[in-house]
Each structure stands twice: as structure tokens, then as C-alpha cells.
């Protein structure tokens, strides 16, 4: 059984004057999924999310939000989406609860259930203790939560979160992450970030964008497979660096070799026992081996690889 798609983009482009921020992207997010939207700064993440949130229309291409066309039925689309913009804008003078009451009203929550809706998002976002304080006097972490509360207000089935953890300290990052994790199953979430560990921890599927194009899509494991399984070995060698370099370069499979201050990093395809071979080669050359370890290639490198490939293509 496949859940119905809640967010769909088909060949979407967005041009600002002569700059093409988004250059023909196609993807969809199914109901109940938490999808990570990954890319370096300036890759087109925010532009894509703004199109989905209904802030501006695409230059060309088809967009569907909860099955609606944002150009024909803008209000139906916006009712379905809670949007958290990067840097969580706020009205500094309003109190947290007062602001959220206004948001509930603007989102057309019926008068009778507004109080309940506000109380629920205050509780969900851990804002009860600061409900009466003015938003401008809160710490960055709390303001970010107010931004999330505003997006959650009115129970939209889709959440579009643009870098919700940017500029937070590690403890706050964990809190926000837990909050988003708590939405699993009940909401469809598109979550952008340029921090990989975050996406890895939260999302079952990742979409990577670079230079306005989609350069990779799938589970973190699938993405790693697409880049090609590689292994990496780090060696610290005592003795003549030239001799060590020559010995390592002669290894079968011609691994990529980097060197700095007597530390060598080898990278090669994953078949073959690179670590053992490298260790033996160093010892046979009559050099001392101080350290030898194998490092896993993490999503970060998969990401960098995809981005580089995408930027070369565009």
C-alpha cells in the first residue's frame, strides 16, 4: 500500500531575474513521511520550500500540495501547510500566548477551539512556562520553538521546516529534533538542513539538492550505495615519508592517497582488504607503523560527493 503524495513537484523552476534558483526539480513526499531536504547554502532549498508554502509561484512546472494546485486553490493549499521559515521571524512586542492566539485566528481556527489549539501547541513545544512573556525577550531556542508552535498551530497535515535548528546550541538542537521526531506518523514533514547528522537521525528518506537540481534521493543507505561503497584507511608512519608514499602508492587497486605530517589517508573501492595490505606494505618498506585504523565513510561524504557531482553538472 502506498500512501498518497502530499507534496509533489514536477519540473519546477524558479528564476529571479537572470538567476535560476531552482532548475527543474521533481520529487514527491508521501503522507506520513519525514523527508530530509539537504543541500549546501544557496542550493535552492529555501526557494523550493517557499514555493511549496505558497509564498510565491514557480516560474514553470507543476506543484501540488495535498492534491491542490497552489495557483488555483491557494487557500486550500495554505490551510494544509504549516511553515517554519529560516530564522523564525517574530513580533517582538507580543506575548507568546497572545501571538499564538492571533495565529490561530489568522489560520481560521474556529473561535470555540482557539483556546484549546493554543494550549496544545504551547504544551507540544514546551512553551507553557514562558506563555506570558514577550517573544522579543526570549532566548533564541525559545523563539525557535515559538516559530515551530506557529507552524503547528491549527493542526496542518503538512509541515515544511526550513532549517529549524540553525543557530541553536547542541542541547537546543536535540530538543527541536525530539519535537520533530514526535510528529512521526501523524504529519508529513519536509525538513531542510545542511547538517547531516540531523537528517540521518530524523528522516527515513533524504533528497539532496545542489545548484538548483536534485542530485540524490533515497534512504541514507541507498545514497551511500549510489556513490559507490568505498573504504578509507588512516596510517601514521615513523620514518622516511617518501618511502612510505612509494610503498602505499604501489598497492593494488591504486587507492587515492593524501598525506599530511606523516599521516596518510588511503581511499579505495571497498573490495579487498585495504587496511591489512597497507600495514604490510609499510612494514616491508622497513618503516615503523604508529597507527593504523579504518574509518567508515559517513553520510557527510556521500553528501559532499553528490553535491560536487551536481555542481559540476550545472
Amino acid at each position, binding site marked *: 500500500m502506498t500512501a498518497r503524495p502530499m507534496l509533489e513537484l514536477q519540473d519546477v523552476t524558479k528564476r529571479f531575474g537572470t538567476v535560476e534558483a531552482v532548475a527543474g526539480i521533481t520529487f514527491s513526499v508521501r503522507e506520513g513521511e519525514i523527508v530530509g531536504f539537504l543541500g549546501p547554502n544557496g542550493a535552492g532549498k529555501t526557494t523550493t520550500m517557499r514555493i511549496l508554502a505558497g*509564498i510565491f509561484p514557480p516560474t514553470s512546472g507543476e506543484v501540488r500540495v495535498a492534491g491542490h494546485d497552489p495557483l488555483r486553490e491557494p487557500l486550500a493549499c495554505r490551510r494544509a501547510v504549516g511553515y517554519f521559515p529560516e530564522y523564525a521571524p517574530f513580533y517582538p512586542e507580543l506575548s507568546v500566548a497572545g501571538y499564538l492566539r492571533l495565529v490561530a485566528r*489568522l489560520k481560521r481556527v474556529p473561535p470555540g477551539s482557539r483556546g484549546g489549539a493554543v494550549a496544545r501547541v504551547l504544551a507540544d513545544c514546551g512553551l507553557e512556562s514562558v506563555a506570558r512573556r514577550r517573544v522579543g525577550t526570549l532566548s533564541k531556542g525559545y523563539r525557535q520553538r515559538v516559530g515551530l508552535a506557529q507552524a503547528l498551530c491549527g493542526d496542518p497535515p503538512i509541515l515544511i521546516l526550513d532549517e529549524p535548528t540553525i543557530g541553536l546550541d547542541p542541547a537546543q538542537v536535540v530538543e527541536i529534533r525530539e519535537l520533530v521526531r514526535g510528529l512521526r506518523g501523524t504529519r508529513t514533514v519536509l525538513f531542510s538542513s545542511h547538517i547531516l547528522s540531523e537528517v540521518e537521525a530524523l528522516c527515513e528518506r533524504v533528497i539532496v539538492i545542489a545548484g538548483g537540481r536534485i542530485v540524490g534521493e533515497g534512504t541514507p543507505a541507498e545514497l551511500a550505495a549510489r556513490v559507490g561503497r568505498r573504504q578509507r584507511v588512516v596510517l601514521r608512519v615513523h620514518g622516511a615519508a617518501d618511502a612510505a608514499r612509494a610503498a602505499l602508492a604501489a598497492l593494488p587497486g591504486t587507492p587515492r592517497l593524501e598525506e599530511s605530517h606523516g599521516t596518510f589517508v588511503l581511499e579505495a573501492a571497498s573490495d579487498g582488504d585495504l587496511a591489512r595490505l597497507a600495514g604490510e606494505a609499510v612494514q616491508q618498506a622497513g618503516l615503523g607503523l604508529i597507527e593504523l585504523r579504518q574509518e567508515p565513510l559517513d553520510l557527510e561524504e556521500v553528501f559532499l560527493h553528490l553535491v560536487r557531482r551536481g555542481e559540476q553538472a550545472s
Partner: protein
Amino acid sequence: MSVLAIAAKELALYFTSLVFYALAAVFLALSGYLFYTNLDFYVRFGGMNLVLGLWQYQFYDMRQLLLVLVPLLTMRLFAEERRLGTLELLWTYPLRDVEIIAGKFLACFVVLLAIILPTFAYPLLLSRYQEIAWGPLCAGYLGLLLLAAAFSACGLFLSALTDSQLVAGASTYGLLLFFWIITWNEAAVSERALTVLRPFSLFDRFQVFMRGGIDTRDVIYLLLFAWVFLAFTFLALDSRRWRGLR
């Protein structure tokens, strides 16, 4: 409904910040002082037509005060929202641009009403000692409110063009002043040009109201003036949005 929701939001922002209180205090203090001096002038040196003359001068003064006050009220309406980034947020809520504009305009008008209406205390006080012709007085207030609406629409439009409150406020002053002095220099402007320009002078339109009359042409002109600037506001927002500007 959504118009009221936007208006409620704007009013909350006006009343939680110092802007409203500061501007209301300045307006009421100055108009009270002006009323006192006008009254004093007419009691001491006044002619035959004491009551009518007094109110004409009072309306003239309040009009000047509005010219100073309204740009300070309207400049934040879109510019501040754009600077804060909250306009973007507003655009993701189920609201039409027309509702956003109407709500902001309504809130601004309510604030002006709250600032202008207390001045009705002057004739009420005076009516204890002197008979007041209420009809002409109400015509004057109608004119003042229509003028306030026209000013607000103009300020709202210029606020929608920039993210700098200062630029929005200064350009509103400029434009309103221009509509005032457009017919001033009769010597420099030819007779024919003057007949073309005169209908557009915002302040000439206030003359009849000030004297206690209501000319439908003036009412329609002021309403049209407001409507045109509200329509411009809509176009400005829409075009910036299509170009992806915030």
C-alpha cells in the same frame, strides 16, 4: 472574517508598542493647545461669526497635525513586517492579499478614530457655555475622517514598496505635501494648468467640510483617492511576490 483577524493583529501590535500612545499623546496635547489658543483668540478678538470661525481654525489645525501623524502610523504597516520577515509568514496562512491590505487599512483607521474622536470633547465642553451648531461640526469631522482615510491609504501603499520604515514615512510626507501644495503657486502655474490641477488637490477638497458643508464630489474624491492607493498597494504586493521579492 480574515479582515478582522488581520485588523486584530495590527491593533495588538499598535497597542502593545509605544507607537500608539506616543502619537495619541502628541496629537491630543497639540490639538488641545491649539484649541485653547484658537478659543482664546476668538474670545478676545473674535468677530461676529464666533462659533463657525473657531471650528474652521480648529479643523485647519487638526488637518496639519494629521499630516504629521499619519505617515508615522502607516510607515510600519508593511515595511516593518518585511524587515522582520513576518510578511512571508503571513503569506503562508490562508489569507488573500486583499484581506491583508483591508485589515491593515482598517486597523490604521480605527487607531486614527481613537486618536481623533477624543477631540470631540472640545465642542462638548464648549456647549455648556455656548450654543453649538452640531450639523456643520459633524460635517467637519466627516471630512477629517475621510482625509485621514485618504492619507492612510497613501501611506499604506508607500509602506508596501520598501522594507525601510524611514523611507516609507518620508515618502508619504513628500507625497501628501505634494498633494497639498499642488495648487499653491498660482503665479508660477498657468491659469489653465491650475484648473486641471485643482481637482487633485487633497487639501482644497477639505475646504467645504471645514466650513461645515458636505459636497458629494469631495466625498467621492477622497474615497476614490483611498481606493486607488489601496489598489496600488495590491498591485505592489502582487508584483513583488511574483518576482520573488519579500
